[in-house]
């Protein structure tokens, strides 16, 4: 089965070159050259992943992502301007699964796409796994692997799939400290890179969405130099 990718990038030549490269890597690529066209194609076509540029005419990548995410969980790899951290943070908030600074090596793009796809596969496999793992309940938080829904005090939380994976990993091993390496591998499906703050950014979004315990203690603690921990609240 071929993997279908939608490449949304306004630079015509770059789009062509990248499509050619992705095609060599056995992806089936559709091209969109502006935000509006991209959103239409993304909503109407059945894609396995989106590669999305931020700076685009008509509708920028962030707005596109926001509208696309309303009821769509297709993984999105975002291409951000290199030195623009603001874009990156906002991108994660809008629900991008991973980002790559642009310009970048196309091999890296392929590696990231594969990582995201691998993770989606893992999630699917996880869903079919035996019952005990399907629903995790800890205090007032309930995480359901089947529906991929997390609720707190009966209310559904709106988590991106990366945030869901992070929380799942943390909840499964609640009380234990998970390293950034581990979390990057389970949640992002790739290895931790140098100066890689992706997990930290996803984590801060997740923290904000899940909130603290009623005692105002944070649910997820940062263990300096090691990683993160979901606190068991006794």
């Amino acid at each position, binding site marked *: 089965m071929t993997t279908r990718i939608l490449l949304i990038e306004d*630079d015509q*030549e*770059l789009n062509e*070159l*990248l499509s*050619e*490269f992705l095609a*060599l890597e056995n992806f089936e690529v559709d091209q969109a050259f502006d935000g509006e066209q991209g959103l239409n194609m993304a909503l109407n076509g059945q894609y396995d992943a989106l590669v999305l540029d931020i700076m685009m005419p008509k509708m920028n990548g962030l707005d596109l992502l926001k509208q696309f995410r309303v009821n769509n969980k297709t993984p999105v790899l975002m291409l951000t301007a*290199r*030195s623009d*951290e*603001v874009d990156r943070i906002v991108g994660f908030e809008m629900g991008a699964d991973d980002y790559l600074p*642009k*310009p*970048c*090596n*196309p*091999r890296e793009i392929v590696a990231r796409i594969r990582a995201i796809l691998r993770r989606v596969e893992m999630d699917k496999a996880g869903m079919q796994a035996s019952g005990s793992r399907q629903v995790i309940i800890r205090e007032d938080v309930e995480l359901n692997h089947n529906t991929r829904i997390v609720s707190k005090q009966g209310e559904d939380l709106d988590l991106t799939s990366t945030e869901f994976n992070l929380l799942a990993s943390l909840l499964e091993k609640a009380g234990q400290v998970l390293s950034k390496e581990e979390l990057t591998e389970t949640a992002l499906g790739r290895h931790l890179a*140098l*100066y890689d703050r992706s997990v930290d950014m996803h984590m801060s979004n997740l923290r904000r969405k899940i909130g603290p315990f009623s005692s105002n203690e944070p649910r997820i603690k*940062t263990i*300096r*130099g090691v990683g993160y921990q979901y606190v068991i609240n006794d």
Partner: protein
Amino acid sequence: MSLMTKWPLRPLIFRSLYWKIFFFFWLTLIAVIFSVATLSEIIVEKREQEEYQRVVKLGIKAADIFETKGTEELTVWLRYIDQEFNVKGFMLDSKRRPISLANLPKNWLEFTLPLTQNRLSERHLRGFQPYRISSSSNRIYTFVAHRDNSGPYPAWLKHLPILQVITALVIVALLTAFVTWRITDPLRKLKQATDSFARGNFDTRLPMLIGFRRDEIGEVGLAFNRMAERISLLVSNQQRLFRDISHELRTPLARQQIALELLARKLPDTEHQSLHRIEREIERMNDLIDQVLTLLRLEQNGQTPSIEAYDLSDLLCKLTQDAQFEDQSKHQVHLQQPDKNMLTGQPELVSRAVENILRNAMRYTADGSQIFLHVDLHKDTVVIRIEDEGEGVPEDSLKRLFEPFYRVEASRNQQSGGYGVGMAIAEQAIRAQGGTIEASNRPEGGLRVVITLPKASG
């Protein structure tokens, strides 16, 4: 910073233009007052002379009338001159006995005592003044004229009373202070604006309060604003050009990178070494463009700063680990800092600054040497010291170390990598948070960079 101590400081009172002008005006005004007083004294003196002559003339006439026409006519005459010449006087003979009863005051006896020679000292005998008269027949009389207290000149000029002098000085001081303030205050504002402009706040303008003045100082204010306008336009144009060029370079680089990868698929493996070489150069250019763009963004500092609380110790810990990993542990980094160190500011910028300095330290020092990272807490600031064991930097290059693309000559080769933007970025990043950064050579050799950060930057 250190420029301030170039000249030995004289006491403020002598340096400040304010006090110079103040004393100048004050002393001038005091001098003017005193000379005016002296001048009027002279004028009064002259008048007094004339008055004396006049009264003496009337006295002689009175003596002559007495000698020729007797006491009764004298009485008539004395009454006459009281009415016509406003001189109220009485006559004493050579033995100082009253001749006529006309105008004789109750205290007339006092005038029978011998007169001293000094006319001025006799002047104020309760408003009476005796004049020594000799008649046409050379007989001596004394004519005593009553003086009107409301003289032709104000009394205070004669006495120069202390209280009035003080009052005058205070009033003059207040006026002078106001005038001086009107001159120096705009100058002070101009200095503040210029300083702020020099620090890189190119949108600094003088308040219209100065601009509205129509005098020379107002002109200076307007000229400053025009200059500021012009310079900030030039700077922003230059920055925009720089930014546009950087952005425009990036697009072909991105395409080139992909084209290169496509080519790599089509060429046999034997050619890959050249391709790698090209790839590395593209990567370098990308890095350089990144750094330039980062620098420009920091210089503009128009971005909304996201102030957050963060733990500096945690940040430095992670950063050192990453840097050491990247460096493949060729250098030993000693990190000495408090366990927890909560600050408010922009951790991203602090991280970038320290990272750049740390990387430079690793790049320019021999493998196996040590790098020290110390954090000291002060009352309102945190001081981060980064020291290496390299060769240091020539003294004359220290100041220029933070200029973009400046590199110490000896190290200007591609082997050591780096593009001379890292330190400039570090400086801008620290300055954006109200901190300072300084470089110096350690006495024991090696470079020391000291970052001072406010604990809470707004």
